[in-house]
């Protein structure tokens, strides 16, 4: 796997191949991974990690402080090996959780640009929409039960569900609308915590989108409850804020109620809005159409953009990661191209709430729903120590095993 290919790897699958010095558990707490202990100076800019012994890369080479230092350097960090430990000099205050970021994974970079990690699986084949993983026999966590994993990206939700039903796949991502059908034929449903934000994002500089009253009117016109109940089959949460309740604890302070009368008053005489969404995403299409119906009721006309790039507002999905509120908020800010936060990297709830409130008050972004990752698993697929899907939406396939094939 090359660097550019690694970037295209499904984020949920990344931890199966590449590991970090530390990792977050499902509650967001840091726990050791490749590093077993650590210390830092008073400014939290100089970190020193002692590596886990007897860890080997997937090519069989041992994990050394030099190799880890080579992988962690860059992006504002300087790292060296000293006394069998890895010393990292950061350009700013750095938290321990930052070392759990997948972007700070430890890997070997070969002369041909290929990347080799320490995770329970190694990439043996990589194509545009297909990847083959093989078990890392000498993984420090223990050899995975599965000998290999074949991953196929893309396809529509009904197609994936059909593959699951026909036993062409053992684990597929499903949408809320397919859950009932998957359960009907005996599939197990694995659901993460709400880790995806679905939101409307206005594009600055567009005449219609620059109308603050129209933005607020659109926000007030949307019937989140009906969408959540029918289209999302109650899988997820209505979102008034950016971070989900499980991550921030204050999401309920943001209003999600509908006020059509006020929306109608605000939208009087407003121009039509061009709404863009991912046409290949069936759920996004249905939500967008429902939003258009709600908007029409409030006197707002939503239409498809005449050309790519002409959208006044777009229906976007953004993954909420990692399971640390301030980092997740920063990640959403980057994904949604939000303004600079007032309190960057501050773990204080008041600061986070103030930042969200500031970002949302002009309605440039209208949070709609926090959605979970939902997977349908074959009845043949079993989990041993940990479930196949963490609350954070990450895959843990190393502890899965399959029933034997029926003759």
């Amino acid at each position: 796997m090359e660097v550019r290919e690694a970037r295209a790897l499904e984020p949920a699958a990344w931890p199966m191949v590449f590991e970090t010095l530390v990792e977050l558990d499902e509650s967001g707490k840091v726990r050791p991974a490749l590093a077993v202990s650590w210390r830092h100076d008073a400014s939290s800019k100089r970190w020193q990690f002692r590596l886990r012994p007897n860890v080997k890369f997937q090519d069989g080479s041992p994990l050394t402080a030099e190799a880890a230092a080579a992988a962690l350097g860059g992006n504002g960090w300087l790292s060296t090996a000293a006394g069998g430990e890895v010393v990292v000099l950061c350009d700013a205050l750095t938290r321990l959780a930052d070392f759990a970021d997948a972007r700070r994974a430890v890997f070997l970079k070969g002369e041909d640009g290929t990347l080799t990690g320490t995770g329970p699986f190694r990439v043996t084949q990589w194509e545009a929409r297909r990847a083959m993983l093989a078990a890392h026999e000498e993984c420090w966590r223990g050899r995975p039960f599965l000998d290999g994993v074949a991953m196929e990206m893309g396809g529509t939700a009904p197609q994936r569900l059909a593959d699951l039903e026909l036993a062409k796949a053992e684990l597929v991502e499903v949408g809320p609308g397919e859950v009932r059908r998957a359960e009907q034929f005996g599939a197990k449903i694995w659901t993460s915590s709400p880790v995806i934000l679905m939101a409307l994002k206005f594009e600055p500089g567009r005449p219609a989108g620059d109308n603050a009253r129209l933005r607020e009117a659109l926000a007030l016109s949307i019937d989140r409850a009906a969408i959540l109940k029918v289209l999302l089959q109650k899988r997820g949460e209505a979102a008034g804020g950016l971070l989900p309740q499980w991550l921030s604890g204050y999401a309920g302070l943001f209003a999600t109620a509908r006020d059509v009368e006020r929306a109608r008053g605000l939208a009087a005489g407003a121009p039509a809005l061009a709404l863009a969404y991912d046409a290949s995403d069936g759920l996004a299409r249905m939500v967008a159409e429902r939003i258009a119906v709600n908007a029409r009721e409030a006197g707002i006309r939503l239409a498809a953009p005449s050309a790519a790039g002409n959208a006044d507002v777009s229906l976007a999905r953004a993954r909420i990661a990692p399971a640390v509120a301030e980092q997740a908020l920063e990640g959403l800010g980057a994904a949604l191209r939000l303004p600079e936060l007032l309190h960057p990297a501050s773990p204080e709830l008041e600061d986070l709430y103030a930042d969200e409130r500031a970002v949302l008050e002009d309605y440039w972004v209208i949070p709609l729903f926090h959605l979970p990752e939902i997977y349908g698993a074959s009845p043949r697929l079993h989990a041993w120590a940990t479930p196949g899907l963490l609350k954070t939406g990450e895959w843990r396939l190393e502890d899965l095993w399959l029933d034997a094939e029926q003759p």
Partner: protein
Amino acid sequence: MTFRTRLLISFALAVVGTAALATWVVSAMTRHAFEQADDRRSAALVAQFRREFERRRQELVRSVEAIAAAQGTLEMAIALSRPEPDYAPYVDQAGALATAHGLDLLELVAQDGTIVSSAQWPARFGYQAEWVKEAADGTEAFLKSEELPEETVLAMIAVRRANAGGNDLYVAGGYRLDRDFLGSLVLPAGMRVLLYHNFEPGFSAQALTDAAGPVKGAERLASLIEKVRSERREMSRRIEWPDGPETFQAIPLAGRNGELLGVLLVGSSRRELAALAARIRWAGALAAGFGILLGIGLSYWAAERLTGPVEELARGAREVAAGNWNARVSVASRDELGEMARAFNSMTQELIGQRDRLLQAERVAAWRELARRLAHELKNPLFPLQITIETLQRAKEQAPGEFDEIFRESAATLLAELANLKSIVGRFSDFAKMPAPQLEAVDLNEIVRGAVRLFAAQLRSGERAAIEAEVECDPELGAIQADPEQVTRALHNLILNAIDAMPEGGRLRLRTRRTEAGAQLEVSDSGLGLTKEECERLFTPYYTTKRHGTGLGLAIVQSVVADHRGKISVESEPGRGTTFRIELPAG
């Protein structure tokens, strides 16, 4: 224009008129028959369309009834009848059912009017559709304006209830009345269906479509559509397209509550009939043209057959007019023209006989007149001769002494009378010996002036009252070819006649004038004038109205004029003078 030409034109006009009339009558009858046939065909096509439309209605009703009666629908109705029902499992149900039953539109509506699932607008779940409850009481499919995300369409809708233990689930299914629906109708050849669906006031060409899409030239149907919309009743109109006419039956489409939703136009092409009528018209025109040509040819032949004898008769008449009384026409037909020819030949035969008899009579009369005139002329000198000779005889016997004197006087008398006799004989001799004219360029004006000068003394002679001479010569007259001596002699005779006609004096007027043929000479007097009978006989030789005239003067004048191929005429009334007019050719 000749009689034959006129006859030919008359025949040709008659033939053309008859052919044109026949063609027009045939064309009109054909057109009428075609229009009747087309009306019947259009009515049949419209009836067929109505049956097809009704069939689709029934098909829709059956489909909706089948959905309403399906086990899955009843189970859904039962599930939704529970408290706080969950619509989520059924949100896609309408789309699947619509696809399975071939419906464009399908909505599943809960008992309280809430849309559970919508095939045409999936995102409309949860909204109210109260109209469904009212429509479910009807049995027939009806038309409805259906709002969709991007447009408002016209639809044929049927609503049925799926009853589950007293709890209704309404099934509202339908077809979009659009180009696809129009294309799905099974229509006979030559027929098409157009749909006008526009809720805005005024005509919109974009709102008129057929199975192939927007209708080209839709503006031609604007007035019909507007009229149907305003009067809300069916109408029929024939529309002329560049490729032929088309009859449209416009049917207003009303909704369940009578509201006008659109106009359906059932078009029946008349192109084939029009082409057939055109072919018949062309064939008629060709036949008429051929008939006209044939008629003209036959007219020419008939005119020739008819006018040949007439022209023969005309030729004979012209010959007779030219003096050839022996002219004959050779028409052998036994019809009226043959009878006319035979009558003509008989007439000329009779005329010749009459002319001969007249000539004979005139000759006898002329001889008698000549004898009378000769007798009269000769009697006057003979009587003095007889008296003189008797005087000589008596003087010889009774007065010998005076005989010499008497002899001398008598001899003088005898010589004078003999000279007189000689003069008389000479005049007759001159008339008999009129020579042929020696033509040369002659100035007629100069001859007139010379004659006036010659007779000037005589006109003012003291023996009678003076005669005033008045000369009016045309300076533009020019020279004519004539014998000057004979013309002078003729003019002198006319002047002498005029002088004789004015014993009490008067006015003599001589006038020349240029004419198209040559020259005209007028000699007028203000004398006693002549009666009509005298005028008719005036140029007869030896006829005279004067006591001592020979009757040869005007005969000589006429002879001179005739020898010059001219004409002489006279106008006179008693008491109002006489005018002689001579026409002489220029060459």
